[in-house]
């Protein structure tokens, strides 16, 4: 169990500035997910934490002990940091059996034989792969290899467990299984976990906190639901959520402490307590109204606060139905639970709860009005 603090971490590959002033605190017992598209620096951050990469700037402490001090060119060796890592490729040593793979690090720690055996047993039992103990990695399926890799990592009782896209090589069904498995491990061991992924579903379902990366910078750190509800800028909003969030261009103006917003769908007035603290420009300015598809409710009949729109396309998919709607030049998507059917060009009525709407400053792309 440990608390990790990254301060002003900078990392270059040649002239390529891959990590820009990363500041991140991971609390004891957190399941922290580093999320972002490929090439955004999340894996590099993980490797910096693990000690496999040496950043050119910044400080890192684990439980208050300095592990990295770039100014002093001090970098603690990976094995001295009390952590373990599960690689994306699993990195199981092909010339060793499952037992030997797990025992390797324990032997180096010079643990007594009984202790090693006990740890191997525990780890295998936890991952439910006891029967494969004498197999070689190439005699195991991808999912089993994955479990061995995790067993190897947890057998050393790490204070901090690092996982680098561990599920990306598994098929969709195994991935769902492993997600619950990982959540269970986190609960059972109580270990702090740093988890790297580009898959937002993984991030949203497992983490206690998500750190969203963008081009080597940290753009937002928040619990999953907060990240989903209030992405900090347009890019984050666009990245999180499937189907994608609806963006509607609009005009906004702050008057009498309230925000007046107009877009093709409707006009809204938002109270001051929903503001984010981001500075709001004087006078009228361009804004973007962002609405999650599941917040757009469709009705066949007109009614209060219902706005007439036309159906542009209709995609029933069994458990849900995606409906593309159009009002004026603006197109947006609605997600209905269950099967629904609408004719193309049919006139329907929609309503959106104003408190569920996000408003962004079009120029700075930052969130100015929160949803709740």
């Amino acid at each position: 169990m440990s608390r990790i603090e990254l301060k002003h971490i900078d990392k270059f590959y040649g002239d390529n500035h891959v990590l820009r002033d990363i500041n991140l605190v991971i609390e004891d017992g957190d399941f922290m997910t580093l999320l972002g598209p490929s090439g955004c620096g999340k894996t590099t951050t993980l490797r910096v934490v693990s000690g496999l990469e040496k950043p050119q700037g910044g400080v890192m402490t684990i439980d208050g002990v300095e592990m990295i001090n770039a100014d002093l060119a001090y970098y603690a060796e990976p094995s001295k940091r009390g952590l373990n890592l599960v690689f994306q490729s699993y990195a199981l040593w092909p010339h060793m059996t499952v037992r030997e793979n797990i025992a390797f690090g324990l032997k180096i720690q010079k643990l007594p034989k009984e202790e090693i055996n006990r740890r191997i047993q525990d780890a295998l039992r936890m991952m439910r792969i006891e029967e494969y103990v004498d197999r070689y990695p190439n005699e195991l399926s991808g999912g089993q290899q994955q479990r061995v890799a995790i067993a190897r990592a947890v057998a050393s009782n790490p204070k901090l467990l690092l996982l680098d896209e561990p599920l990306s090589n598994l098929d969709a069904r195994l991935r769902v299984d492993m997600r619950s498995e990982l959540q269970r491990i986190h609960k059972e061991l109580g270990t702090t976990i740093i988890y790297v992924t580009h898959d937002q579903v993984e991030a949203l379902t497992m983490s206690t906190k998500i750190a969203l990366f963008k081009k080597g910078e940290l753009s937002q750190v928040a619990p999953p639901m907060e990240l989903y509800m209030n992405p900090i800028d347009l890019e984050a909003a666009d990245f999180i959520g499937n189907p994608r969030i609806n963006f509607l261009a609009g005009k906004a103006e702050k008057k009498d402490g309230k925000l007046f917003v107009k877009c093709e769908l409707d006009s809204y007035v938002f109270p001051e307590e929903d503001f984010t603290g981001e500075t709001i420009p004087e006078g009228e300015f361009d804004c973007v109204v962002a609405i999650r598809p599941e917040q757009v409710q469709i009705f066949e009949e007109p009614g209060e606060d219902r706005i007439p729109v036309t159906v542009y396309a209709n995609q029933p998919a069994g458990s849900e139905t995606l409906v593309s709607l159009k009002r004026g030049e603006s197109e947006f998507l609605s997600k209905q639970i269950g099967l629904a059917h609408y004719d193309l060009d049919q006139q329907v009525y929609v309503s959106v709860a104003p408190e569920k709407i996000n408003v962004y400053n079009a120029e700075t792309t930052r969130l100015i009005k929160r949803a709740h």
Partner: protein
Amino acid sequence: MTRLKNQFLGVVKNPFNLVVMISLIVLFCLIVIPLLQMIAATFTVAKGELRRIPGAKVGDFTLYYWKYLVAGQMSKATLWGPLKNSLICGFFTVLVSVPLGSVLGWLVARTDIPGKKLLGMLVVIPYMIPSWCKSLAWLAVFRNKTSGSLGFLEGMGLHIPDWLAYGPVAIVLCMSLHYYAFSYIHVQSALRSINSELEEMGEICGATKPQILKSITIPLVLPSVLSAVVMTLSKSIGTYGVAANLGNRIGYFTLATKMKNFINGSPQNVGFAMSIILIALAALIIFANQRLIGVRKSYATIGGKGGRSTEMRLGKAKAPLMVFLVVFLFFAMVMPMFVLVMETFQINTGAGYALKNLTLYNWIGSSEELAPYYTSYKGIFYNSEFGKSVFNTVRLTLIASVITALCGQFLGYITTRGRGKWYGNLTEQLVFIPYLMSGIAFSTMYVAMFSKPHLGGLIPSLYGTFTLIVLTSVVKHFPFASRSGTANMMQIAVELEEAAEINGAGFGKKLTRIVLPLAKNGFISGFMLTFISIAKELDLIIIMMDKRTTTMSYLAFTYSQDGMNQMADAISVCVLLFILVCYIIANKFGADIGKSW
């Protein structure tokens, strides 16, 4: 201060850095310094020329050697003539071997020619035979009265003119039958790696078969063909054994053969200058090629994924192509080998295979009464020279290939783990230098370097020692060995090492517990291929040979030059068997002969 201390500790405490540093120093000493030394020697007055250069002292700067070579009275005979001969031989060898190899590669990779597996094996066998053995086989078939004893054809009553038996035609054909393997292997693997969907797409677009061949297939394999051209050209220009066996008898010299005359004679420094010309020539060809194809080199591997390839049906062309293949294999392999083996049993070469002309004397002859018939030597199995040469060959190949293969793995480790970093690139480039040099040019450089003691006797004069021969063989095979080491190390993902690091393994433990066990198989196959390559070597070690260090290949060469053809043949048959056995063993370990140059 702490920062500096930590930085220093960071570098010193990591054994990897130490290993890199030592290897770079060693490479520098073994490759860069000898090259510079040899270049310097061509500008320095040596003892032998003191009286020819008035007023000069030993060690003075001079342009005498270069003037002698380039603009002297003899330069037509010493440089320009042989240079022209080398270029002509190289050019025609390319002209014959590249189309031949490419067609064979295409047949095996892309068509439904029957017996492909067997064919693929047979076609590379000629490459396993050392090229100088081929020249002996050629002589066994075509020898005429000019060199004393008759060959197979002359014995059958055909008159073989000198121009066919010796000289450029013979050299070109012999080398072509050796070096076509480059084109074969290159084109074949390029074709294999091109997804045939690319061609099928052309078909869907409405292109005809010749159009597809012209605008899709050929452009895609062109880079491989070009690099085969380059390898063939640079190798054939520098080849010594074939050119000497087939050219010396009629005074036909190439740059390589002429150079050896100078190095064993005088002025030696002129020989060094010629060696520099050879190196420059090879470097020029290779760099021209890189400029020409440059980025396009990566073509062939792009389609590597999926790799579905459909065979082209040959239809009516199948029969003639099969005939072509059989005829080719017969003339390139079966007949010369048959004649070569049979000659070892003949009393008089070219006198047919009647029982009264057959003997085992060349192998096991010891009877004193028969001896005057042929030579003053006993049959090779009773010949102490032969015994010594077998011992020398085995000793040399074993020691040199163990060292080479080990170094190769280390160098490969450094290049792969340092990929994109300065030391990785530097290692790769340094290791590549011996590749530019033909065997004889390379050994010349070492002779120049080690003929006198260095560092005040710390490195003694190694001239004429077995150590020097080992050292030369090792360094010359660095490019190949490190390439096989690199390929081997590439297969070991860095993550496997990092995982060990995270589990607390230090450099030593990482190497012994993770890298070495995983590298084992690749190491063995790399070792075997190096072993074979050193076992068949002649060009590389020929100028260092003397009575004490004679290897089998050199003994065969000298016997042949002395007109003792049957004995020379018998020795080359032994070398061939030796190589074949090694190859079969190597194959068991998954070695691929296609990677052995």
